[in-house]
Each structure stands twice: as structure tokens, then as C-alpha cells.
């Protein structure tokens, strides 16, 4: 039997990393990942991007040479396309990212993908969750998860298993260092401090429950660097040690740091912002320890793409997230719950007709809960605002395309001028257009069944009779609005699934 090999290539700011893993299943059919090789190819793509905003041709050529070597590894393990090569901020933020990706494709045949900052942060969150002992406890008590990389800092503030705040901000260690590269070495640290202080201020303002956080967790190359310096056996760094090191090096040049601490040139360049950023966030929440996971990003990516790491009960958690964000915008919780209940009933009852995929189910859940949050901004054009708000959200682990789909469905959920067929206006792929139409068609029916927002219809049953779908609604009073809107909104259902849907109201007297 041929071994199942999966290769992850992580194109970061300071290096390109290639992890070759073997995937096998144990007797319980659980996936087991064995790392066969992990190769780090140093290459400072980030220095180009964060200083010049583009990747220089020289770096592009160097990267191509590295990918030629990686290609040899593909051949060596005969992986036959079983790989993921992902770019993070150093490529993502470069103006010529498409040229870079195309050059690598032409020269080596390797397809690179750019992952967005939220997804990157989520993958790292999962990795830390899996590998850091005591993570659950820290998370439930309130923790800020910092993914400090070269280009950006990902901040995920969590409490009681919920993400209170999640964002990726341009405060990466190398970026900060490049930003103030023209300032004299002795006082450069002051510029770093001012810049990082601004970040802390932003966090405090943006996250209402920031004062409830008491732990700080670091990840990625920044904690790897600290580990290289401190060589500790525990899973945390003490703030006293970090502060002492910072006081020792803050006025010293990068070359002196490199000599004194026996670290590389690149590492010595980013050490000051790394230390100060961690120290200042730790101080801001009163944390004495900086916890970390020693799992590297390539490993996290491997586990993520092989779906070994799955956030437990992720879908349930997503529902919580949708409600959490909805509440921020004064969501009509009862209506949202009702629409969610009805849409789920329709989906389940008609699963053989509707054929809703897993991603579509998530979008349907999201749309059922969030479709009306635009009321928070403007009652007259709430669909438009619902779409905008939904698109501004960062929900850890939720694919950006799914979130956009939720937004589009919310945009089209009304009974007015917009119809599901208008989705074509957005020049979506035929597959995605179909997804949108399917979700809208169900959402409109479910939404119509609580058109009054008064939960008059208590329950529904759905049957397929002859050549139509019969929805029987149980209500204590005649639901006039629901009946009217059902008629208006059921057209999409017919157009999408090719079968009419009809409402029968059964009055339920006590």
C-alpha cells in the first residue's frame, strides 16, 4: 500500500518552511500524523514587503530556486499533488503578490494560495488549543491569544469559549522594525513603544470585555525566538525575565544583540518589538506569565488541512458566535431563533430535494440568525446594512466566502425588488450562485413564517405531496402577515427547486 504523504509549504516573512507528513489511521480510524521532514529555507520576503510594499525580483528568483528544491521533495515522496502551499502576510500584503504566485507556478508548477489573516489566526488558535496544556482553563477564564508574526499581529480575545474580539493588525515585529528603521538605534525603542502603546489602547477600546481578561498566550516565530533565548522547560515565560531582557537590549544595536544572545541577524532585528509588545499586553491585562505552544505553523497547517484539528462542536460554537455578534447589533433574538428553527425543519424535511452541503448549512444558519441585524443601522434599508455588518465581522474559523454568502443572502431575503436571481448581478460562479439561491429560497420561507416577529406560528410540519411541498403551520391565531409574506416569498423556492411550496395554517385552540 502506498504511504499517504501530505506536504505543507508555509511561505512566511522570514523563511519558507516545508513540512512533509505521513498520515495513517490507527485502529480507531483516527488520523495519526507523523512528521517525516521539516525544512526551513531562510528567505526574507517580509523585509521586501514591509519596507518596499512589493517583493523584489531578486527575492522572487530566490524563492523560485527554493521551490525547485521543494519540487524535488514532491518527487521524492511521489505526493502527486497532495500538498498545500500557503502564503501569509509577507506575500498577502505585497502589491505584486500575483506576479510572485504566477512566477512560482510557471517555474515549478507549484500552486500557492494566500490565506487571509482571520483564517491564519484561527488555524493558530486551533493549534495552540490542541498543544498548550491547560488552554481550556485559560480560555474560559479569559485570555488574549497573540499571534505575533513578522508582518501582522493577530489578536484573538476569548472568554468562556467565545471569541470576544478577533482581528489581525499591522503590528508585526518586522513591520514595526522596518517602519522605524531610519531612527537612531539608541532611541528607536521609544518609537516602538509609542507605536505598540497605540495598539494596546485600540484593543482596550475595541474589546468591551478587555478588563475581564487575565492571561496572555503567544504563538508563532516570536515565541520560538524567546524559547531559543530563554531555553526554558516550562510552557510559559515570566514577565520579570522578559522585562529584564528588554531593559538589557532596548538601547543596543541588532548586531550587538545577535552577538550577545547568539541569535541570527533577522531575529535580533525583531527582538525589541517582540518583547515590548508582549510585555505591554501582559501589563495591560495584569498577566504575569506569557504562555506559549511550541507547535509550529507548518504543523498547525498540516493538522488543519487534514482536518485532524477540528474545533469540537464547531457548528454549535458557530451558532453561538452568530448570536453573540447579533446581540451586539440588538438582534431580535426570538425572531432569529424562530427563523433558525423553521429553516432547519425545512432543510431536514426536504433534504432529498434541497441537497444542502455542509458549507451551505452553515451559511443558512448564519443567515437565519443575522439576516435582520441591519435594523440596528437603518430600518428602511436593513438588508443592505445587514450585508455590510456581516461582511465586517471576523468569526474565527469561518471561511470568508461563507461569511460573504451569509451577507448576500441577508441582502436578498426581503420581499421587495430584489430576488434570488439578482445574485447573478454579483458575477458569482454558477456553483456559488446556486448556493446563494438555495439558501435564500429556504431563508425566505422561514422568515415569512415569522413575518410578524411575534412567533405566532408555533410549529410547522413539512410534507411532499404529489407535486408540491406542503407546509402546515400551527398557530393560535390567524397569522395574516405570515400568510401574505409566504405567498410573496415562495416564488424563489419554486424557481430554485422547481417545486411549488404552499402554506396551510392549522389553528390550535386551547
Amino acid at each position, binding site marked *: *500500500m*502506498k*504511504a*499517504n*504523504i501530505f506536504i505543507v509549504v508555509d511561505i512566511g516573512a522570514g*523563511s519558507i518552511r516545508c513540512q512533509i507528513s*505521513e498520515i*495513517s489511521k490507527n485502529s480507531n480510524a483516527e488520523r495519526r500524523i*507523523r512528521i*517525516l*521532514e521539516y*525544512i*526551513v*529555507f*531562510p528567505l526574507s520576503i517580509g523585509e521586501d514587503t514591509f519596507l518596499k510594499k512589493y517583493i523584489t525580483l531578486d527575492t522572487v528568483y530566490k524563492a523560485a530556486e527554493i521551490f525547485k*528544491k521543494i519540487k*524535488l521533495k514532491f*518527487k*521524492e*515522496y*511521489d505526493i502527486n499533488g497532495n500538498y498545500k502551499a500557503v502564503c501569509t502576510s509577507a506575500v498577502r500584503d505585497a502589491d505584486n503578490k500575483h506576479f510572485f504566485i504566477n512566477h512560482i507556478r510557471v517555474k515549478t508548477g507549484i500552486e500557492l494560495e494566500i490565506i487571509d489573516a482571520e483564517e491564519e489566526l484561527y488555524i493558530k488558535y486551533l493549534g495552540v488549543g490542541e498543544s498548550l496544556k491547560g488552554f481550556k482553563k485559560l480560555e474560559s477564564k479569559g485570555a488574549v491569544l497573540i499571534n505575533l508574526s513578522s508582518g501582522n499581529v493577530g489578536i484573538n480575545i476569548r472568554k468562556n469559549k467565545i471569541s470576544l474580539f478577533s482581528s489581525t493588525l499591522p503590528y508585526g515585529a518586522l513591520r514595526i522594525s522596518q517602519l522605524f528603521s531610519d531612527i537612531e538605534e539608541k532611541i528607536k525603542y521609544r518609537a516602538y513603544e509609542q507605536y505598540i502603546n497605540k495598539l494596546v489602547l485600540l484593543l482596550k477600546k475595541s474589546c468591551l470585555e478587555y478588563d475581564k481578561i487575565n492571561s496572555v498566550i503567544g504563538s508563532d516565530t516570536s515565541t520560538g525566538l524567546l524559547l531559543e533565548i530563554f531555553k526554558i522547560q516550562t510552557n510559559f515565560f515570566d514577565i520579570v525575565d522578559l522585562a529584564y531582557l528588554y531593559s538589557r537590549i532596548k538601547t543596543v544595536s541588532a548586531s550587538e544583540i545577535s552577538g550577545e544572545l547568539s541569535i541570527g541577524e533577522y531575529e535580533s532585528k525583531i527582538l525589541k518589538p517582540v518583547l515590548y509588545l508582549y510585555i505591554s499586553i501582559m501589563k495591560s491585562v495584569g498577566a504575569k506569565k506569557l504562555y506559549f505552544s511550541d507547535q509550529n505553523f507548518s504543523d498547525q497547517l498540516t493538522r488543519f488541512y487534514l482536518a485532524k484539528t477540528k474545533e469540537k462542536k464547531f457548528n454549535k460554537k458557530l451558532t453561538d458566535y452568530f448570536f453573540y455578534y447579533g446581540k451586539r447589533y440588538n438582534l431580535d433574538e426570538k425572531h432569529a431563533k424562530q427563523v433558525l428553527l423553521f429553516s432547519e425543519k425545512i432543510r431536514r424535511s426536504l433534504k432529498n430535494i434541497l441537497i444542502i452541503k455542509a458549507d451551505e448549512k452553515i451559511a443558512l444558519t448564519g443567515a437565519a440568525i443575522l439576516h435582520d441585524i441591519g435594523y440596528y443601522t437603518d430600518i428602511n434599508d436593513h438588508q443592505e446594512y445587514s450585508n455590510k455588518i456581516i461582511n465586517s465581522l471576523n468569526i474565527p474559523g469561518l471561511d470568508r466566502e461563507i461569511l460573504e454568502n451569509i451577507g448576500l443572502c441577508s441582502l436578498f431575503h426581503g420581499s421587495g425588488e430584489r430576488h434570488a436571481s439578482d445574485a447573478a448581478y454579483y458575477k458569482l460562479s454558477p456553483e456559488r450562485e446556486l448556493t446563494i439561491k438555495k439558501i435564500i429560497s429556504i431563508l425566505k420561507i422561514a422568515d415569512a413564517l415569522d413575518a410578524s416577529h411575534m412567533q405566532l406560528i408555533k410549529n410547522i410540519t413539512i410534507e411532499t405531496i404529489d407535486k408540491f411541498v406542503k407546509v402546515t403551520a400551527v398557530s393560535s391565531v390567524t397569522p395574516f402577515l405570515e400568510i401574505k409574506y409566504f405567498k410573496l416569498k415562495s416564488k424563489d423556492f419554486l424557481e430554485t427547486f422547481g417545486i411549488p411550496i404552499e402554506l396551510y395554517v392549522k389553528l390550535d385552540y386551547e
Partner: protein
Amino acid sequence: MNNAGKYSYNNRELSWLDFNERVLMQAADEAVPICERLKFLAIHCANLDEFFMIRTAGLKDLVSAGYNEKDTSGFTPTEILEEISRRVHKQVKKNAEIFKSLAMKLSKLNIEIFPAESLDIEILDEIFYNEISPVIAPLMISEIEKIPFIFNLKICLFVELENENKVFDALIILPENIKKAYKIKKSKKSYYFTSENIIERYIDKIFQGYAVKDYFLFRVTRNADLPIKHEDIEDLMSAIEENISDRKWSNIVRVEIDREITVALMNKIKHYLSINGDCGDKDLYITNRPLNLSYLFNINEENKSLYYKPFKSSIPDYLKNKNIFDIAKKKDILLFRPCNDFKIISKWIDEAGKDKNVLSIKMTLYRTDKNSKIVESLANAALKGKHVCAVVELKARFDEEKNVKWAKKLEEAGCIVTYGFPDKKIHAKIFLVTRSEEGRIVRYAHISTGNYNEYTANIYTDIDYITSEEKACSEISNMFNLMAGYSDVFKWNRIKLSPVNLREALSELIDFEISESKAGRRAEIIIKVNSVFDAGITDKIYSASSADVLVKMIVRGICSIKPGISGLSENIEVKSIIGRFLEHARIYYFYSGGKEKIFISTADLMTRNLDKRIELFFEIKDAESKKKLMNIIECNINDDLKSWHLKEERYTFAKQDNSKFNCQERICSKFDKEK
């Protein structure tokens, strides 16, 4: 300050000359069969050739560059050159005496290795006229007042001629392709003629019309143009670069003349060779025996008593007709060359190339033999579509040309050939096979102390180790990634390698013994290597001795350590074993608080091995293999037939009348019995 004073290291060159003297003494050892003694004479001679081309030439470069500082042994380059000349003259004289004595003994056995001039053998006419005469080109050099460039180690015949009261000088340079020796059987006697010996006999025929006044054979040794690696002089390279811009590359460093000649003739040859400056009178050596003794390797007689008992390498029962992958999956395999047949390894490499489950093969190649079957196997594997990666070291001294040839052969077959680093030689001997077995990747590594060379595998002692241990194989895989230039960012836990962390690792291991000893616990180090020459390591071993750590060393060649000096090295024992096989395995043992850590390596304790080469230092953890290695070490320590003991800078032969322990025989006997 210890009793050794300021200079507590043995001198590298003199230590090496001591080693070569021990080789020479094998030729004088009555216990060694006579034809094998001839081979030791030839080895002694060949060793000196290399010594002059590299080491003496390097020292001369230093002198030319105006560098005349004392080294760690307290000698300046000029002083060392003086001492080398003195000692080599002595050794050359001894070599001639032994040669004559052996020639006489063989003559009594009807074997003439240096036939008398008066001998009349008709077939020589045929050899001379048909084979030799057509390829030689005598030159009259007195008329052109200079001689053509004489290549390194080419044998030349200088002839003084006379015609009509006028003296002429002539020269014959023996061509490259001329046969070294001819064996002629006549009247139940064997005669071995060198080509130059035959030419001498026909000298009148070559120079017809002239009277031959006198003649002699000579050869020159030239600087091999390889920069000296003088580990103790940090600014050496800059000294050379700054001061030697007008250096005459490949200049003569030694002249050998095969017999005593007149002062007039001597002056003539000195004049022709422009001997002055770099090469002076002290560099002239009268050998009083054939100049090149390599023909002695071709002495081939039917009388078996003249040779060592035929030696047959064995295959342990547990490996006979077995698939190495099947065995290595279950347990590690430790083999000892030449007792165990190297074909076990070469055959395995060949089978790996044909194995349908094998995904990739990676190998380092340093010195391999002509028409190497291993190279053939790798090329075939690549042709079969396997991913084959060969890391070829082109800089293996004197093998550069050969290495280029088979590197090309591998490339043509589709192997990925990489050439390591411009500034570091790849000296580690590793082979890694990756196999897909029932949906799982399994890697097998072969780690050796010796080259992948089927010829030397029969005459060098070495360790071969095969393992499928995951951590070891994973890090060896990284070693290949490092050597192939993929990256230099790796974490090394299971293996140690130079120049990355070997020096540090050795230091830690020795320091641990020191701390154990200081705490009143047992502390012991046993090191078996070819050479020791590094100030840091020497000092560290002295520190261990000073802390009462028992240090036993088996060092075949150069040894900078001066054992037995009170207050410095009294707890260090150093011995050198020179036997039938060339001692080549490097084994390191540390008592380590009872854990008994034992390592095999390609690294000697030389600065070049620790800082300038890629070497592997591998701990053997498998209990059974550890036991075998301990046995090998014990045999080395117990040897009293082939051992020389070093006390400060002087070696004494350990053999006594009641000595009976020959370690090479004992080890082979143990491995031969292995089931």
C-alpha cells in the same frame, strides 16, 4: 605550570613520522610473513611521498612566506624542516637496510626482487626492444643547458656520456604508461625487474656511439599545490596570501637518488634541477634501493607461507540469504570490516535500487574504488526511476579526478548529484533508504566509519551500522538536506555532527566525566581514532586527566597528546596499533555515570574534522550492538602483539616474549563465529 612546560603538545609532523616509522617496523617484524613485510616497506615509501607533497611542502610555504613563529609544540617551521630531514634520512637508511635484508632472504627462497646486474636473461631483450624502447625518449640535455619539466614522482635516469673526449649529459624520463615491474621465471627462480632496472641494463644500447661514464636514477617530489591546513596558526592563510604572491607553484621539495654518486654528478643534478632556496642539500635523499617500491605489491608467489593466511570475510548466519530490510526493521545490525563481508552492504544497496517499495536512496560518496559496484547500483536505481541523491565529495585528496568521472556517470543516469560545500569536506559516510511499507514510510540508515570502497573494505577495519530507528533516520535525512544545500536550520538531538555541534558535544561528554570524577565517582573515557591534533580537545583531555578521569586512547597515527606527564597527563594512556589491517574505525566510549555511552564516528580528533568537515558522531543505543563495540574496544586495549605505547613523545613497542594477544585476529574470530 605542568611538568611539560610551555609546549605540552607533540608536533604534528614529527608525530606522523613516528607513525610511519611504526609502519616501517612492521617490515622488520620477523613475525610478519616476508612478502607482507615487503608491502609495509612499500607503504612506508608511499606514505613519505604524500608527506613530502603535502606537509613538508606546506612548511616550506610558511618559510617562504617569512612565517617562522613557534607552533604549539615549540618548533618553528625551519626547525621542524630540519628535524624532518634528520628523521627521514634515518628512516630512508633503515628502509634500505630492511629492503636489502629482505631481498637476501628472498633470494635464498629463489625470489629475486632486485636482480643482480650480471644476470643474463634472454627474454629481457624482448621486453626491452618490444615494450620499453619504443616508449622512452632519451634527451641530450647538456646542449640545451636545461632539462624539461619533470613531473612529480616520475622516475628519471641521468646518464653521463663521453664521445671524443667531450662529456654529454642525457636524461630519460620514464613515461606514465610504462609497466612498473616484470616477473620472469627461470630455473625455478622468480625474478622481479622494474622497468628502470631493465633500462639500466640496456643503457649502452640506448646511447650507441657514446661511452657511458656514469648514471643514476632519481625522482623529484613536488609541492602538491594544496594549501596547508595548519590548524594552530590562525593567520596562516593571510600570511601566505600576503607574502607568497610570487610563489613558484609546484616547486621541488625533495630529490631522491637511488645510489651514492660523485660530488661532481651531484653538483650537476643540483644545477639542472636548480636546487636552491626551497629545496636544499637536506632535501636530497640517497635511497640505496629502488626509488619506487610500489612494485613490491606485485610480488606474487605460490608459496603461501610468504603471505598472511588467506582471509575470508564472513556473513553472519542471521544475515545469510536474508533481506536486510526485514532484519533491520526488527533490530539494528552492527558489522565489523573486514571480518564481515562488505558485500553485505554493497549488495543491500543494489537490492534497494531494485526494490519496488523503495522511494528514494541517498548516499555520501567520498572515496570509492575504480569501477565501483556501488556507483553502478545507484545509477541503475536512478534508471529504474528511483529518486537517487548522491552527495559527492570531489575534494577527497588525490581522488579528485576519479570522483569527477563517476559523479558525471551518476548525473547521466538521472541521479541528483550535489557536491557539498566549497569550504567543507563531506567526510560522513551515510546511506539512507526511504521505503513505503504497507502505507507507512520507513527509513533505513547505514552509518559507517569507512568509505564505500569495496577494495579498502578488505584491508581497513571499520564499523558498519544499519538502523531503522526513526529519530536517527529522520536526523540523517536532515543531514542530507543540509548537504544538498536545502537549509542549515535544523535541530539535532539524536545525532551530533561537525562542524555544527560535535566539538560542543565532545566537550560536554568529557566535562561530565570530569564532574563525576570530582564527585568521587567512576569516570572513564576510551577513544579509538586515527589521529589527535587539536589544541582545544588536547587541553580538554588533559583537564580530564588532571581531574583523575581515566583516559585510554588508541590512536593509530598523529597524536598531539603527551601522556604520562605528572600533573598534566598521568592518567592518560595512549597506544597505537599497527597490524595486518589498517586501523580505521573511530569509536568513543564514556562511562557516563554507568550509562556507558558509546559512539561511532568518521571524525578524528583533528581540528579539520571538528571544524572543517561534515562528520557524523552517532551514539549506539542498541544493547546488543553496544556489547559488540565494547568487545572491539576491549580487544584493542588488550592487544600486546601489535601495540606501541606512547610516553610523552616516545613510542615503545609493547610486544614481550609472552605476548599473545593480537586484537585484529581476536575481533575477527569473534565476528566470524557470530550466528
